């Protein structure tokens, strides 16, 4: 019976952190919730009797991907600071403190120019 309660709480926490990671206003908060989701997912793998997957999920999903996403946020903020101080790109949404705004258009606006930057 206590196992069922634990599983229900774990499932609810998984859904809650996933929703929080997707719908959070700030990018940093979304990444932190994503790391928490990775750790809870590792617990879920243990409950599903797949300890190998739990080890891999904890190391890669929660650890490495979290570090990569935080790096990406730093990179985005850096580029937005550079572009805000220099030219105004046509799709630029304005001053740097708009970082905490709508994350979806941030991703689209910067995603379209990343390949061109890298190719330079």
């Amino acid at each position, binding site marked *: 019976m206590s196992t069922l309660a634990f599983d229900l709480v774990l499932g609810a926490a998984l859904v809650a952190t996933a929703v929080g990671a997707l719908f959070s206003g700030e990018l940093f908060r979304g990444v932190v919730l994503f790391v928490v989701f990775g750790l809870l997912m590792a617990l879920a793998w243990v409950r599903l009797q797949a300890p190998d997957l739990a080890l*891999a999920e904890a190391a890669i999903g929660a650890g490495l991907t979290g570090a990569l996403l935080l790096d990406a946020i730093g990179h985005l903020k850096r580029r937005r600071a550079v572009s805000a101080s220099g030219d105004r790109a046509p799709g630029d949404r304005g001053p740097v403190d708009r970082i905490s705004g709508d994350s979806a258009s941030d991703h689209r*606006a910067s995603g379209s120019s990343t390949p061109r930057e890298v190719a330079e």
Partner: protein
Amino acid sequence: MRARGRQLVAGAVSASLGVALWQAIGARPTPSVSLPTLVRDAMPMSGVSHDVTAVLLNFRSYDTLLEIAVLMTVAVVALALRDASNQRAPARRQQLVLDALVWRLTPLLVLVAAYLLWIGSSAPGGAFQAGAVLGGAAVLLRLSGFPIASVDHRFASRVAVVFGLTVFLGVAIGTLLAGRSLLEFPVQWSGALILFIEAALTVSIGVVLYSLFDNAPQARLGEPTSAPSKPDAEPSR
């Protein structure tokens, strides 16, 4: 379509997919072949005593070989993304607590990785888990500012990246040359061969995962990234 409308559509599609999955899982037919029984019966021939390792490295070792090839491709792609921001960080100043933690933690992480590699033959563990821990240790060193080497175009880096795939391919070709089918290990050597392959895989997986972090475009304070070009035709909302 406005953002709220898009979210409603996505939510409706996800909910209907969830309901369909729930019903499909409930109505699944009993399989004609019981795979766990097959694996359990073949375990004495596998050379290890943990069934996941036996499946990954012996019964379905070809899939693992292809996975390692994919990881190596990932490292090549990460190398292609390398730019000026990935150069070595300037000399760091000493930070007492961080340094004390990192130099105590890193040998422990290497020891845990070696343990996971060794114990993979009889308990949950294996090459991927050990490689992930090694990669995490390297990322920790990098984040703390220690002068750990980069994964770039030097010869040593390239050898480290392809080492696992080369060893695995070498064993595969060896089995073919010995007249067996691809990756059919001789039973009395299969345990040793699995450990040998896994050791090479651990090194490569750790290096590949670290190279993903190392070669990703990074933003260091005070170093501007390359100037952004004007993106043409931003999609208008």
